[in-house]
């Protein structure tokens, strides 16, 4: 048998990486068509950087990601603390539900909520519920359960006598929380924030349905979706997609490296 037994695993890894390699290769094509190889060229990267629509799309993606991750981390951590300290089975079940409901159902529901109810209700008051807060609201809703699960896993390891000791030594409950509980939870809170951010940057369904109605609000994934499959699609999409791949892989690489360093 020997080395042959590694063959299925090697084939699976090739399957995972081949499309990424092909996509990257086709971002350097000199052809005008996204799916045709026509010699080497960097022209499409130049086009990406010149495209005036991409700056706002990148800005929107990051704004939604940072705003939703911050909110979801605060809300999810508070929820985790509360659920870990007292029994609330109904709330506990509700908090897990977004992990189980198909995302498209939630996304369609948000479309109905915003388009049919919230926007018409706010319009007479002169208030406009624009796309950015709508997308953030949707993202926070599906991020909260992930933050809660991650933080609760760490809370289970917290020795309650530590907080009791702080209180015995004269700390107020707020001081005990800020100086004992929170520092202990910090790694999990940070992990929850990173998870929320990557979920937001990756999201398509909720963003797509929350922005339906032609408001013109676009994130990078929406931009790729809108450009893809159109007649006359140029390799500019390939270049943009390759840049996005490179950026997220770079981020994961750096975070793994930082983790290794902090453990060493």
């Amino acid at each position: 048998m020997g080395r042959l037994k590694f063959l299925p695993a090697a084939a699976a890894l090739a399957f995972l990486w081949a499309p990424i390699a092909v996509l990257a290769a086709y971002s350097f094509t000199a052809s005008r068509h996204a799916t045709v190889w026509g010699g080497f060229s960097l022209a499409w990267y130049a086009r990406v950087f010149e495209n005036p629509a991409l700056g706002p799309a990148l800005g929107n993606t990051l704004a939604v990601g940072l705003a939703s991750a911050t909110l979801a981390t605060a809300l999810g951590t508070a929820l985790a603390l509360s659920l870990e300290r007292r029994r609330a089975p109904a709330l506990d079940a509700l908090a897990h539900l977004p992990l189980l409901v198909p995302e498209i159902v939630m996304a369609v529901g948000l479309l109905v909520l915003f388009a049919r109810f919230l926007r018409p209700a706010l319009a007479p008051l002169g208030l406009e519920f624009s796309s950015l807060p709508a997308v953030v609201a949707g993202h926070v809703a599906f991020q909260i359960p992930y933050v809660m699960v991650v933080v609760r896993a760490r809370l289970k390891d917290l020795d309650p006598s530590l907080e009791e000791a702080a209180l015995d030594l004269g700390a107020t409950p707020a001081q005990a929380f800020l100086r004992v509980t929170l520092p202990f939870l910090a790694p999990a809170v940070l992990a929850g924030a990173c998870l929320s951010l990557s979920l937001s940057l990756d999201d398509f369904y909720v963003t797509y349905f929350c922005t339906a109605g032609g408001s013109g609000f676009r994130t990078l994934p929406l931009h790729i979706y809108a450009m893809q499959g159109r007649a006359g699609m140029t390799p500019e999409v390939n270049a943009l997609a390759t840049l996005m791949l490179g950026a997220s892989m770079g981020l994961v690489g750096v975070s793994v490296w930082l983790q290794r360093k902090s453990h060493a």
Partner: protein
Amino acid sequence: MIKRAAWPATAWLAVFFVLPIALIAVISFARRTPAGLDYWPPALDAYRRALEGVILRGPVWNSAWLAAATTALCLAIGYPLALTIARARGAWRHALLFLVVLPFFTNFLVRTYAWFILLSPEAPLGRALRACGVETPLLGSAAGVLLGLVYGYLPFMVLPLYASLEKQDPALLDAAADLGASPWQAFRRVTLPLSRPGIAAGSLLVFVPVLGEFVVPRLLGGGKVPMLGTLIEDQFLGKVRPNWPFGAALAVLLMLAVGAALVPRLRGGKDAPWAA
């Protein structure tokens, strides 16, 4: 203080999760009239339409068999990979895990788009197939959609499998060998049964989201492989005659199907899907 800490998150989930789904449920019982939606009395028109033969034989059947086939293929490809990683040592294990996780953290839409290029008739794969006499293009076929689905969801299968295989004590295999089992017998009678929770968790993480998938059939199916997700989107955002009650009824039925798939896991208590 702790008591009130749950309120903001609860309120958020109530408004932006529970309320939207409740609205979908209400709309699914509405009746379409020229003046708009008529909510009272509740009507079953949308459900009747959703359970018509054309719908069941088309999008519903496609979603069901593609979800089942994707789960089976992910298991077939993912199990040897997870086993190899779990049995690798030190630096090798870290490197292999990294190679699996890295694509997982890149954008799903970008990864699906990569298959759009790979499957296009002008790309090397398409030309090679034509040279072999296969004339049907992969792009816009069920096979193309299946490939994209397997690709997109493979990491969801590999990671839970790895987590359960990695926990197994290697001494069990030594014991099996000492007792005269061949490597294949040891795998069949020890490794495989012990990895059952990983298989169940991975299968669920693949099967459930694929049922509601709409990006992959849209991008790689080219409108020729309708699934539940694309049909639901058509009813809400389609250019031709959107039908909210029909779309809402499909969404409710999708939720019920997912609920049915989850029941055996939920009854397991500690084995709840999120515990995996």
